[in-house]
């Protein structure tokens, strides 16, 4: 059933200090509202118990993509459309651009934000695997000031994360060192457009004379959180890509992920597809 709209408040603070004061005074009472592409769906379904929302749309500090010599800083309000249009992201962070292009429709991409995707904390979200592969950091802001956290470890359990009720996610930072890495991203869903992932895989590796010097592997929809597969990475790092090594890595991956049966797919299917995607990625490295 639809929600009773008059019961919902949505404030639009004009400045960061105003926003932080509000959530500082009443932590947990005011829930952030960015593009609304997750929240409005819950509202329509009558599944939004929270009644008070704080729109971030006027916070200039949360917008824009800034590039320095060693990092790209994306404001939390950066939309999927903005990600795809950015030349440095296209050149150096293609996995994030692909994730953005495969997220919803153009209308969703015009409204949905990267920060919203991170804090909504769906295990099936499509950008977080790319963020994990790129060693992203997240910047949290409260009245007390700023703190940076590695994105790996930010999600601690299903919809649980290291953000306090008086904090907002302000930005996501990507170190600019992926250029020499071979990169791979594939989202598997029911159909080509507008599907929620059954499995989503992002990988990157730095090769040296046929040996994997360093590697990142991350997957969506195979665990309660989007998972960086560190054990699988360790099984591959330092090795050459051989059929035996691929088989071994697939075995490690099977023990590292914990896919479930749900409305979109089955645990068995997800396990098999995750392993096949790992293989496809590793084959790409050997080329």
């Amino acid at each position, binding site marked *: 059933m639809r929600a009773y*709209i008059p019961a919902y408040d*949505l404030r639009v603070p004009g400045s960061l200090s105003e926003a932080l004061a509000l959530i500082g005074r009443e932590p947990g009472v005011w829930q952030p509202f960015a593009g609304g*592409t997750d929240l*409005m769906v819950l509202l329509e*379904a009558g599944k939004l118990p929270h009644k008070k929302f704080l729109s971030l749309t006027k916070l200039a500090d949360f917008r824009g993509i800034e590039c320095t010599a060693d990092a790209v800083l994306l404001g939390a309000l950066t939309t999927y459309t903005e990600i795809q249009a950015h030349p440095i992201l296209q050149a150096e962070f293609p996995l994030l651009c692909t994730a953005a292009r495969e997220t919803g*429709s153009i*209308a*969703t991409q*015009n*409204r949905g934000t990267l920060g919203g995707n991170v804090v909504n904390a769906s295990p099936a979200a499509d950008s977080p695997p790319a963020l994990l592969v790129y060693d992203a950091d997240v910047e949290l802001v409260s009245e007390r000031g700023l703190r940076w956290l590695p994105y790996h470890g930010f999600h601690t359990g299903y919809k649980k994360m290291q953000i306090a009720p008086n904090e907002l996610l302000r930005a996501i930072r990507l170190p600019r060192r992926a250029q020499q890495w071979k990169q791979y991203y594939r989202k598997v869903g029911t159909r080509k457009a507008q599907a929620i992932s059954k499995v989503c895989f992002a990988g990157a590796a730095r090769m040296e004379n046929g040996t994997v010097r360093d590697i990142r592997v991350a997957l969506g929809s195979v665990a309660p959180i989007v998972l960086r597969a560190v054990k699988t990475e360790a099984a591959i790092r330092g090795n050459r890509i051989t059929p035996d090594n691929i088989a071994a890595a697939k075995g490690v991956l099977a023990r590292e992920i914990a896919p479930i049966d749900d409305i979109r797919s089955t645990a068995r299917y997800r396990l098999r597809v995750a392993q096949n995607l790992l293989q496809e990625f590793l084959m790409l490295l050997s080329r």
Partner: protein
Amino acid sequence: MSETVAKINIACIVNGARQRVQAYPMARLLDILREEMHLTGTKEGCGEGECGACAVLLNGAIVNSCLVPAIEADGSEIRTIEGVASGDQLSAVQSAFLECGGAQCGICTPGMVIAAMALLARHPHPGDAEIREGLAGNLCRCTGYQKIFASVVRACKTSGEKLAGTR
């Protein structure tokens, strides 16, 4: 009954005309357009961002109005299907839909036309893949899509139609 909040004033420009309405802050732009402004061309299909029947241009960008809270319409410029033709003169996209049979029951059509316009503004000469991507957010229960696709291909040929600032 839950507590209720006060309505807010919303001023925006819709299809070139100034509009002022009062609405609850979380009301959907879709409902404001249809029920307050009586612009019922914009349709509701799913109410959850999946079908595109409610698509409008908000500050030039295509959005699903069922997912936009009223408060964000304040100060904005909106274009709905009612603002696509100039008087009796249909736009190139609309004419192409007529000529190619791109509409049957018509429920998806306003959103399809808006999506096609947004597409042509981004890619005046779209390839097949771009057309499919541009329409991927719009569902149709009647046509089987082929005629909609053909309508957009035709519109590209007839139009040169450009909407400044449309994404």
